[in-house]
C-alpha cells in the first residue's frame, strides 16, 4: 500500500498538462483524406483503366467497388477506435469492419456467379499482388505510425484491421487502374492476398502496437 502511495505521488509530480487525442472520427477523416489524396495522385501518375466508364454500367463491378470503398472506410474507422484502450466506448462501430468484410465477400461471390461465360484470365498473376503491396506500403506505415501514438488494448486485431485498411487502398487503386475483367483473377491475386495480409497484421499488431 505504501508503494502505491509513493507511486501515485511520483506520477502526480510528473504530470504536466496533456493534450487529449483528437476524436476518433476526426482521426479517421484525416486518414481517409490522406488516402484520397494518395489515390488521386497515383491515378494521375498511373492512369485510370480506359474502360472505366463502360465498367460502371456493370452492377456487380459497381457493387464491388462500392463495398471495397466501404471496407476501406469501415476498417479506417475501426483501426482508429481500436487504437484507444476502451475503443472510445464504441464497440459496435469498432467491430463494424467485420460486417463490411462479410458483405464484400458476398458481393464477390455474386460477381463470380454472374461471370458467365467466364472472362478470360489475364497473362499476369503475382504482379497484381506485388502492385497492391507496393501501393499499400505507404498507407500501412502511416497508419501504424499514427496508431503507435495511442494505446491499443486489442493490438492484434488493431494490426489486422490497419493492414486490411492499407491494402484496401492498394486493391482499390489496382481495380480502377488495371483493365481486367476476370473475377477469378481478381479474387485470387487481388483480394485473397489482401485478406491474407490482414491476417499477417494480427502478428504485426503484436510487434508494433504493444505498449
Amino acid at each position, binding site marked *: *500500500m505504501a*508503494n*502505491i*502511495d509513493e*507511486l*501515485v*505521488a511520483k*506520477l*502526480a*509530480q*510528473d*504530470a*504536466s*498538462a*496533456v*493534450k*487529449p*487525442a483528437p*476524436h476518433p472520427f476526426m482521426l479517421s477523416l484525416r486518414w481517409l483524406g490522406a488516402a484520397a489524396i494518395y489515390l488521386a495522385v497515383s491515378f494521375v501518375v498511373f492512369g485510370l483503366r480506359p474502360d472505366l466508364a463502360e465498367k460502371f454500367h456493370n452492377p456487380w463491378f459497381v457493387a464491388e467497388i462500392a463495398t471495397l470503398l466501404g471496407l476501406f472506410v469501415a476498417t479506417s474507422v475501426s483501426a482508429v477506435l481500436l*487504437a*484507444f*484502450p*476502451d*475503443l*472510445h*466506448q464504441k464497440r459496435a462501430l469498432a467491430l463494424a469492419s467485420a460486417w463490411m468484410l462479410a458483405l464484400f465477400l458476398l458481393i464477390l461471390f455474386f460477381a463470380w456467379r454472374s461471370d458467365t461465360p467466364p472472362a478470360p484470365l489475364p497473362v499476369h498473376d503475382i504482379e497484381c499482388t506485388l502492385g497492391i503491396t507496393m501501393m499499400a506500403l505507404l498507407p500501412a506505415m502511416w497508419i501504424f505510425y499514427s496508431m503507435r501514438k*495511442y*494505446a491499443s*488494448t486489442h493490438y492484434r486485431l488493431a494490426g489486422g484491421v490497419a493492414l486490411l485498411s492499407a491494402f484496401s487502398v492498394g486493391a482499390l487503386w489496382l481495380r480502377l487502374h488495371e483493365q481486367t475483367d476476370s473475377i477469378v483473377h481478381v479474387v485470387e491475386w487481388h483480394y485473397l492476398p489482401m485478406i491474407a495480409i490482414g491476417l499477417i497484421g494480427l502478428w504485426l499488431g503484436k510487434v508494433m502496437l504493444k*505498449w
Partner: protein
Amino acid sequence: MTDQNDKLEKLMKQSLNGDQRAYAALLQETSRLLRPFLSRRLSFSNEVDDLLQEILVSIHKARHTYDGNRPYKPWAYAIARFRLQDYLRAHYSDQLRHAVDFDELEESLPENVTEAGFSYESISAEVNKLPEKQANILQLMHQEGYTAREVAEKMGMNESAVKVAAHRAYKILRGKLER
C-alpha cells in the same frame, strides 16, 4: 454511483490540464476502485500490489487517450483488464515452462511409490545445503509461491538468471536425492 463517475471525470479533466493534486486524487480513487477487481482474480496480495502499480503506470502513459467527455471507469477498466490478461498470460507461460513432463516424471519415479525414498524434511535439508542464492530462489518460488519474475525483482537479478539458477539447483537436488 453517478456522483462518483462525475467526480472521476472531473478529476481527470483537471489532471489533463496539469492539476497535480487532482491527478493524485484520481489515481488514489482509481487504485481503490481496482484493488477489489484484482483481488478477486489473483491469489496473492503482493501480486495485486505489483499489478496495480503496473496499471497505474499504464493509465499515466495512456491518459492522452481519454478526453474527459466519456465515462472514466470503462476506460480505466479496459486498461486494467488488458494488463491483467498480460500478467496472467506471462504467469501461466512461466508456469508451463517449469512444468515437468509426465514422461520425464515416470522415469524418475521409484518403483515402489508407497515408500518414498525421501521426505519433505530431507528435501528441505538438501535445499539448505545448496549455495545461498540457489536456496533462496527455491524457497521463494516453491515455499512462498513467487514467480520467477518476482523473485528476480526481489533479488535484483534478471528473470533468466533466476531460471538458470533454479534449473541448476533442481539438477543438484535430483542428483542428491537419487543417490
